[in-house]
């Protein structure tokens, strides 16, 4: 690098992150290698038992379940969010900022409030049941709240604005003449979308997907509120280790595996984005 000045400007941020983020995290994660003492204490003898326990079928199952729910939420959020971003990018450029503003508006309200709102909607005698009754549906309503479906709905709803923003960026930067060139060369609108628009906006989709997945897999608020007590995701499990079971070493081991999964995905996504954009210019 020729000019080092910009790097100096990063020093405060790096110092802050190191002091208040990286070091505490490492300290907690280090606990994973120690034994759990009696009455919730920590016995400082090295062990790999905690990490091994994570891969016990019981806990590995919760990991897989969480990954499945996070994956489903990310998939649904990407489909809905991409469609919305597409529509916004196709609107007259004057109106796009307003539409974007409305798309991310829910984001500015409190996470808990937003999630509680869904309880009101999905409740046994909530708004959705009320609406079905009003429309003349008399049979027994299936249970809506405290189901996996409710958790997925809550996660999708909460993280949708991320996806819209992530997909809007590449869609709005797309030169409309490129899609027109495809039409001009004989492609239908659908083929143009599939062969040109979609591949060119993969980076946005990947970013949106990984974002929702990573935020969902570790989430514990939404599963607790919308999934009810009987339903655990990995975030709830970690929460319980630290706050109720008082097994900090096992909680740390679970966190370590979760963080490893997240880091792996984020790295993969960065790599995919770079490849898809084909940005490796060979200056000659």
């Amino acid at each position, binding site marked *: 690098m020729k000019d080092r000045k910009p790097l100096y400007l990063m020093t405060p941020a790096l110092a802050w992150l190191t002091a208040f983020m990286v070091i505490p995290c490492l300290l907690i994660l280090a606990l994973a290698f120690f034994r759990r003492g009696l009455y919730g204490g920590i016995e400082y003898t090295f062990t790999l038992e905690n990490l091994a326990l994570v891969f016990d079928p019981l806990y590995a199952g919760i990991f897989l379940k969480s990954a499945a729910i996070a994956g489903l939420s990310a998939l649904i959020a990407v489909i809905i969010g991409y469609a919305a971003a597409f529509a916004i990018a196709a609107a007259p450029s004057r109106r796009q900022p307003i539409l974007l503003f409305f798309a991310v508006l829910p984001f500015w309200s409190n996470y808990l409030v937003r999630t509680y709102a869904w309880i009101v909607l999905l409740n046994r005698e909530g708004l959705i049941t009320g609406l079905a009754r009003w429309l003349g549906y008399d049979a027994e309503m299936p249970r809506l709240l405290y189901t996996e479906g409710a958790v997925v709905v809550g996660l999708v709803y909460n993280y949708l604005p991320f996806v819209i923003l992530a997909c809007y960026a590449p869609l709005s930067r797309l030169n409309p003449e*490129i899609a*027109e*060139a495809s039409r001009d*060369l004989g492609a239908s609108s659908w083929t143009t979308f599939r*062969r*040109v628009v979609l591949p060119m906006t993969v980076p946005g989709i990947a970013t949106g997907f990984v974002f929702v997945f990573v935020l969902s897999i570790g989430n514990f608020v939404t599963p607790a509120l919308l999934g009810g007590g009987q339903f655990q995701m990995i975030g709830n499990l970690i929460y319980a280790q630290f706050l109720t079971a008082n097994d900090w070493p096992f909680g740390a081991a679970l966190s370590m595996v979760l963080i490893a999964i997240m880091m792996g995905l984020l790295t993969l996504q960065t790599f995919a984005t770079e490849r898809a954009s*084909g940005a490796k210019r060979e200056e000659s």
Partner: protein
Amino acid sequence: MTQPLLSLRNVQKHFGTVRAVDGLNLDIQENEFFALLGASGSGKTTLLRMLAGFEVPTGGEILLDGKDVSNVPPNRRPVNLMFQSYALFPHMTIAQNVAYGLEMEKCPKAEIKTRVGEMLEIIQLSHLAGRKPDQLSGGQRQRVALGRALIKRPRLLLLDEPLGALDKKLRGDMQLELKRLQHEFGITFIIVTHDQEEALVMADRVAILKDGTLLQCASPHDIYERPNSRYAADFIGVMNFMPAKVSNGRLLGAHGKPVTAQIPEGLHEGADVVVAIRPERLKVSAPQGDAAGSLPRGRVLATAYHGLDLQLHLETELCADPITVRLTAQEADQIALSQGDQLELGWDAKDTRVFAA
């Protein structure tokens, strides 16, 4: 007379109150190399986009081989457009870009392979077939865009300022190259440009657009030698304009003496006109006798040497702007010239055009 390949009948395109194209009538024959020339905003791109199918005319008809195609979508027209931005697919290689149009026609794989190979030969990019567009130079990208459109063998190829992004030397080469390809493929080309020289060099016929209307449509020679309006005369090449007034069937110049000119019919007494003459039609000579001679005189303000010719800028009483004279190298050798010299200026009436002021 054979049916024209393309006929425009009173074609209009209005965007709200903007009349981008305002009642065009034009016939283009098969195998023609046709140039649309006009200032920025004159409606050139809008016209091409209507021909390609991206805009539906708000009025009139576009006939291709005698059939109205105004409402046929772009992917169903035997017409291809080479975009001003080239609009290459950045995620595909050069070979994939060129193959795209044939894939859309559901050509057999083997045929696509040979035809893409041939096209890459023609546009001289075989060695870069596996590169992505952003790894190419401007000139190479331009050739990819051309190859991608030509491989479809359209009835009509539309080129929107195809050479606009290239440097001067490359433009000259590509002008000849485009003409060669047009001849070789036997495809009708409509090329848009705002560079009048480019239009004259390449085209069989040139049309001048102004504010969405057709001002003149003629061969490069006629456009240059017989412009039909002051705007056309000014737009193409260099032109000297001298103000004059009709008086007793003659034209009186700004200096109050008669001006040699071919006077068109229908000019009424006292009308204000301009007399237009090309720099290469003017003759200069060393002054003979006294200053009261019949020929107007000028003082040399500047000379500019261009290799083959010499341009003189003369200050005269004929008009406020300096008059430009172009002399061949031989002509220039016969008169010693230096700044401040007085010269006599002459021309033939048949070389002038007279327009309403």
